[in-house]
């Protein structure tokens, strides 16, 4: 006979008393105890009975995994493995093929400006400099615009058009880069020439705005020295990354706690004071993270940059004058006629680009996560 079961029966009497009968199965058969729960205290002699009734040792739960579940489990793990292998393969492949070229070039790979792999003289100094200078110009332009727009959408915009603006900015982040490239090539370049000329004529004393080949006092000086500059590429990329950065910032600003906002206003802060003391400190992670996300995108941008620059292989500090380069446009430019070794050199350049972007993106991720506003995401 099996033991350990019990069944309780309850009766609520008309006078409000509650009676309980407990039938329990012990080694000696079924026993019955009756007690009155509405009595103020229970006699200790009834303890053992109660304890037997509450005999609730944790049961072992044996969940049988069905065949479908097992297949699903393996499938899910398998897809994770496939993705992992695929992604690692790309990185490893780049590293292995690139290592060949880096070994051949040695330390000069980081200092050499030329790119002639087949004659053994090649390095990423010029292209890396170009990549970073374009990205820095882009961020310098995009950051204030994105910050201002995000603040406007989150704090100033009338509620009626807010969701429309959010949609517009998110949409802009999805516009193909080739469209931005077209705009830069056919619209911005022509409109930027007089501006670049004006800046270099009046602000030429600032080193980066100086253009040596342009003499402001010469009325016949050609403005063509200002075409296809790093500034142009930077502006095009800025238009691409500003919506991305803006949409990250806007999301974070919108999460700033209402209580703190109203607290600041109640203490007499003006709207700007409230933004500066509540919204920006709260959204600092979003501002930095969004900017770095934009920077990562700016570093890797290929087509828009390739369309507007005229590639050179020297470090050009004059951001307004013709000629710059970037790693991704170098790859786009040279992959077609590359020999086996030259391809390996391009892989090495790609590896450098990948490393830089990854560091920037990881940094962005960590900053967003560590910040107060990123805790929930």
């Amino acid at each position, binding site marked *: *006979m*099996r033991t*350990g079961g019990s*069944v*309780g*029966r*309850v009766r609520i009497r008309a006078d409000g008393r*509650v009676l*309980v009968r407990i*039938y329990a199965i012990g080694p000696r058969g079924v026993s019955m105890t009756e*007690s009155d*729960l509405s009595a103020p205290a229970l006699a*200790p002699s009834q303890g053992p*009975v*109660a*304890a037997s*009734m*509450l005999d*609730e040792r944790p049961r072992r739960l044996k969940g049988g995994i069905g065949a479908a579940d097992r297949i*699903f489990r393996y499938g*899910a793990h398998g897809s*994770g493995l*496939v*993705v*992992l292998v*695929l992604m690692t393969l*790309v990185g490893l492949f*780049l590293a292995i093929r690139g290592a060949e070229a880096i070994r051949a070039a040695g330390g000069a790979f980081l200092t050499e400006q030329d790119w002639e792999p087949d004659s053994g003289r090649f390095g990423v100094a010029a292209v890396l400099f170009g990549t970073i200078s374009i990205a820095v110009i882009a961020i310098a332009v995009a950051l204030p615009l994105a*910050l*201002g727009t995000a*603040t406007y*959408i989150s704090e100033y*915009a*009338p509620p009626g058009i807010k969701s429309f*603006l959010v949609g517009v900015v998110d949409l802009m982040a*999805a516009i*193909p880069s*080739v*469209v931005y490239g077209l705009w830069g090539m*056919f619209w911005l370049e022509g409109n930027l020439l007089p501006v670049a000329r*004006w800046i270099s004529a009046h602000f030429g004393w600032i080193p980066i705005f100086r253009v040596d080949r342009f003499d402001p006092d010469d009325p016949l000086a050609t403005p063509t020295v200002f075409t296809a500059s790093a500034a142009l590429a930077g502006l095009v990329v800025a238009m691409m990354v*500003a919506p991305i950065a*803006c949409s990250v910032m806007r999301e974070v600003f919108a999460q700033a*706690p*209402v209580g703190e906002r109203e607290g600041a206003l109640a203490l007499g802060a*003006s*709207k*700007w004071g409230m933004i500066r003391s509540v919204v920006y400190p709260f959204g600092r992670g979003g501002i930095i993270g969004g900017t770095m996300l934009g920077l990562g995108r700016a570093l*890797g941008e*290929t*087509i828009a940059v390739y*369309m507007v620059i005229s590639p050179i292989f020297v470090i050009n500090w004059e951001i307004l004058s013709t000629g710059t380069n970037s790693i*991704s446009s170098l790859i786009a430019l040279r*992959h077609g006629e590359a020999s086996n070794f030259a391809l390996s050199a*391009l892989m090495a350049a*790609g590896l450098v*680009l*990948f490393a830089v*972007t990854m560091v920037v993106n*990881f940094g962005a991720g960590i900053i967003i996560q560590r910040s107060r506003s990123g805790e929930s995401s």
Partner: protein
Amino acid sequence: MTTTPASLPASSTPGRPMPSGPSPAPVPASSTPGRPVPSGPSPAPVQRRPINPERYPRTHLPSAAAQAGPAQGEARRNLAKVRREDVLRAVGAASAAVALTAWLFSQILPARGALSFVVVAYLLFLGLFVALIALDADRMTVWDRVAGVVIHSAAVVLLLALAVVVVFTLARGSEAFKHLNFWSDDMSLAGPLDPLTMGGMAHAAVGTLIMIAFALAISIPLGLTCAIFLAEFPSPFARLVRTVVEAMTALPSIICGLFIYATYVLAFGLDKSAFAASLAITIMILPIIVRSADVVLRLVPATLKEASLSTGASRWRTIWHVVLPTAKSGLTTAIVLGTARGIGETSPVLLTAGYTTYFNFNPFSGPMVSLPFATFTLVKSPTPSQVARGFGAAAVLMVMVFALFWIARKLGGKGAGVLTPRGERRAREASARDAGRFASRGLRQAVADFEDAQRSAGFPGGLPADPPGWRTAQDSGGPQ
């Protein structure tokens, strides 16, 4: 805990959190084995109501008016207010600034050019605006108004620039795409010098569609299963996969192209083809899809999953019937945005698909061109009609992206488990159906079955007959 038949249908409303707030707390004492047992009989039987089928809690049928969704935070009040004097000051300062700049430019400064005019006028406007406010306000107010103006102008500049990008492309592209042949022909018969009434971009559009279809055919199943793996089977291995995937979202698109070019085309010796381009696009959008789908899946409330598992559903059924429907809108957004990104990217195609001027419907051999790559190639040509065709292709591409984006906004953008009115109605109908099913089985019958089962399991001889007025209320423990 006590098993009563009526507690079974509790979770028959998938896709909605329990409206009664947080998950119902278990009866404390009787369900925590580790706690010291107070002397005396358990109070548990007293808390139960006597069995009365009419009074048992039934499947909850959410009414249309019921508040849905997770608890909302405090709502923000709209504090935006336009003051009349601010508008007057802004208008005054602006007109004064324009007039002053015009005078400066024509009489004093040797500068010219539209943009320098705008810059100088804007700076003057800021100065004049500050001066106007400072006439009758303190410093804090001045800062507030200036910050407001600067923020407004940043927004205007960015939105205006973006509008210029879009309008410029559409306007230049309309030259080409207003001709019907642009939509139906390829470029095999149209040379660079032919007018726009010959040739079109249909081959590039077909190429784009074929490439993205292949890329999605690989990346949707793989990406979603991987995201489910990351969200539902947490382990150190899953963390590793997640880290690698996040690192790979930083992968510049040209490197995806380079990878496929170096392996598929050079190492394996296969032709440049649409399939190679699809592979490159897959590598590019896979991390994007996995990452955003993972984020969405992790937002599915654990209570929903636990409710499903507690009814005895398997992991697989829980994910298929509870997790995926709950996260449907977010997953759709993830896929659509990945698609938009994949459609617009030129560089993977540049390295792997080759350029062609005619229709090619075979994705595995021969070059195939896509819209962004066609744009890129055509606008480098010196002839105006080729450039116009390039703009036309870009405009078509942009419209495709807009359409995808619009679909994403329509379908998605909702948090996990937040339903559309139609979805809510459907959930209500499902709940009503379930409740009807349970009712038709008969609660009384269920109670009787339960008692029979109990009796035969624990008490082979049967219990003594109940005296009138007594009811069986609890089975604790049970046969071991």
